[in-house]
């Protein structure tokens, strides 16, 4: 059983290199991004998430909507354990995997096989499981002997195949996805979609940040609306999307 719980989570951090002198107001809420604040020492703070409480349970597939800088990625990173909350607490049950930037960590001077092992380890997958996943990746990517060559020899499409296959090599209980990546030929597109669907159906909780309403309607039964780091709404996809549309893009 998987479970994700946020209790009054706030993420607030200082901008160390900002010239605070040029920011005049004490509290600024501009069109995009989190709320900027200036403390007595002239240090600028960004409040990227403000007092978020959420309880995600088995079978929930949750979309995150909101304009640029509303805190979608920050929320995903907090749920992943990359950012620790400044205030509040998080609880999690179940194995988590992230699909943030699938190309990240791929070293172009290493071979395909070396990258599989490297990124598998970065994702916290035990060595034995990485080894077991290799035949499946070979089959999925159709890269054949190219897997023994440095990835700098790959075309963009080939790289995406490899990155996608590596990112989806385990079956997590909780899956956190930032946007959906789409490159490569149509044949790969179909395969990728099938693999993605298999991942989504096996995961007990999916959290998916996206701008695409089509994808959100297709994949999510619930949605969260974020605005300036605050949770505005959490409910059925249709209701939340309607609310988001009515508010209009900022």
């Amino acid at each position, binding site marked *: 059983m998987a*479970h994700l719980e946020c209790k009054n989570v706030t993420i607030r*951090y*200082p901008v*160390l290199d900002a010239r605070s002198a040029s920011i005049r107001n004490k509290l600024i809420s501009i069109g995009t991004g989190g709320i900027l604040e200036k403390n007595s020492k002239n240090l600028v703070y960004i409040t990227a998430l403000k007092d978020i409480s959420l309880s995600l349970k088995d079978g929930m597939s949750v979309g995150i909507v909101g304009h640029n800088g509303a805190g979608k990625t920050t929320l995903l*990173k907090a749920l*992943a*354990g*990359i*950012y*620790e*909350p*400044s205030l509040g*607490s*998080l*609880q*999690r*049950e179940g194995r*988590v995997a*992230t699909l*943030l*930037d699938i190309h*990240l*960590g791929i*070293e172009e*001077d*290493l071979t395909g096989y*070396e990258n599989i*092992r*490297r990124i598998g*380890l*970065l*994702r*916290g997958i035990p*060595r034995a499981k990485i080894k077991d996943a290799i035949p499946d990746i070979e089959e999925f990517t159709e890269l054949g002997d190219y897997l023994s060559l440095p990835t700098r020899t790959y075309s963009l499409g080939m790289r995406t195949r490899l990155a996608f296959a590596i990112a989806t090599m385990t079956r997590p209980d909780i899956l956190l996805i930032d946007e959906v990546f789409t490159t490569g030929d149509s044949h790969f597109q179909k395969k990728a979609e099938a693999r993605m669907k298999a991942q989504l159906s096996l995961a007990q909780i999916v959290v998916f940040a996206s701008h695409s309403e089509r994808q959100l309607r297709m994949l999510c039964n619930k949605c969260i609306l974020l605005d300036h780091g605050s949770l505005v709404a959490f409910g059925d996809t249709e209701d939340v999307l309607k609310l988001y549309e009515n508010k209009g893009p900022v």
Partner: protein
Amino acid sequence: MTESNFKTSVPSDVAAAFYAWPLWGRLGWEDTKLRYRRSILGPLWLTIGTAIMVVGMGMIWSILWGMNVAEYFPYLAAGFITWQWISAGIIEGTRTFSDQARLIQSFPLPLPVHSFRLCVKLFIGFAHNLLVFIGIAIIFSVPVTAWTWAFVPGMVIIYLNCLWVSLLLGIIALRYRDLTNILEVIMGLMVFLTPIMWKVEMLGSKQFVADLNPFTHYIAIIRSPLLGEAPTMLSYGVTLSLTAGGCVLAYQVFKRQRAHIAFWI
């Protein structure tokens, strides 16, 4: 298994980082390999570079000091390779986290992993440089004594220091970016102020000046055994106390600042 705040406690974070040894071992080795990618000799360039430095410096300085080459070359080589390890630990230690910004913001890894990774890379560098000393030791038939094996605990002490230094400086340098530049300047000076190219005895009645410099002792715990001599108890005392104190300090700072690291990057 329920995880609160995902990173339960600092000790379990450090333990989790330690158990991820297949990861940091691999990354440390790949860092070395990728630095010399597509060159024919690969990481052997580390060895060659150091060999050229030592031979070049040794020829001039042995004349300057009026020292016997057979005595000066092994002394210089052993001290210089140890210095390179220490100096790289301090300078690169300031970049432990800043160099891994993208990884830290994308994978929820236990943060000490980045420090462990750097230490592996630095040790691999030292191991390559050690070949230079071994070559020189064979040429000038440096004696192998019972004390020679004391270079192993010496390496362990320096390795442990790399761990706390890279963790501590890595955190401080995120907040104060000038630290890297300051330390580069200081280390560039210390190479001359530390008995590496010269000997403590040359200070005559003012030998205490060298003893006040902690680097003297860190160098001695590896150099003396390599030359078949015993390091002084003072050297062990100084280095072991600094190791213990440094580990405690780095742990405390890490405990307080861990939550900030991902934001300061």
